[in-house]
């Protein structure tokens, strides 16, 4: 078994109101950052798990997103996986 850190990035769907993103945008603009067209606020969930392969690790988190982590009515998700460094054996 290999150890993975799988990250699910969950974002509000296109067309879904995102008042948090709007508020952040206002904050950035008041700091005089220019050229900002849009700000969307989502969440990232990092899951440490064991799996035989990257595909298996991603597939597991995909099922978690479908069932619990994301709400398909209002959110989309994307997943990335990194292999965790093995603890150095002495």
């Amino acid at each position: 078994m290999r150890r993975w850190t799988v990250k699910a990035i969950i974002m509000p769907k296109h067309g879904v109101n995102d008042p948090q993103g709007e508020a952040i945008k206002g904050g950035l603009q008041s700091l005089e950052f220019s050229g900002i067209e849009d700000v969307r606020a989502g969440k990232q969930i990092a899951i440490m798990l064991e799996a035989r392969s990257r595909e298996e690790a991603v597939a597991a988190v995909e099922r978690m997103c479908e069932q619990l982590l994301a709400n398909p009515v209002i959110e989309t998700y994307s997943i990335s996986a990194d292999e965790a460094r093995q603890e150095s054996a002495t």
Partner: protein
Amino acid sequence: MMSNTPRVAVIGFPGSNGDHDALHALAHDVGVNAELIDYRATALNGIDAVVLPGGFSYGDALRAGAIARFAPIMGAVQEFARSGGPVLGICNGFQVLTEAHLLPGALLRNRTLKFHCHVTHVRLEDAESIWLSNVSPGEVLSLPIAHGEGSYYVDDETLARLEDRNQIAFRYVEKDGSLTDEANLNGSVSAIAGVISEAGNVLGLMPHPERATDPLTSNGSGLKILSSLLGSGDGRQVAGSNRHNAVR
């Protein structure tokens, strides 16, 4: 008469805070047998109606209602709802019902980013439900709200379907019943404050009817919704109800 008194369950989740308000309103003001059922239970044991109360189940972790939806009792609640049993979701209970796919849509952060805690006015739309049998279409109710995530969202296609099938129960309105942008304080799609299931036995709403049943603190608007369970007064309406026998 007493033997006909309906038994109404209020489900207590970790983080519920409207459970005892609902129990009190049901027992003292409506006059039904109200009992608290723990979220870890797995059966409803012959209950006639279920209330999912307001609050912050699981601290709203992930999304409001997302974790509570998988609580052990929810299997029995889903089965009860699918077989036509009356289910009412208030505030967080509404959020749980959408997460559980017993009602369409989802509830987002209020557009103001504020927690709104005051009395609002909602208008009953052209929806038929056992929970609405004591309210007339067009009637304006005064009900308190207390939520940060009550902005109802559905996509355009689903909204058209809800309108088509008369599933929109309540809209936020002014005191005189008119629709204004200001009245829709949380920015809900089409000012929707509550919806019913296709069969009409499941109602979810953001306002709190259980906090508007006592004549000392309200005009009794909430009592109209909760006492709908009793129908014309013989208590039979609640058993095996669905939109067809939930007559006005």
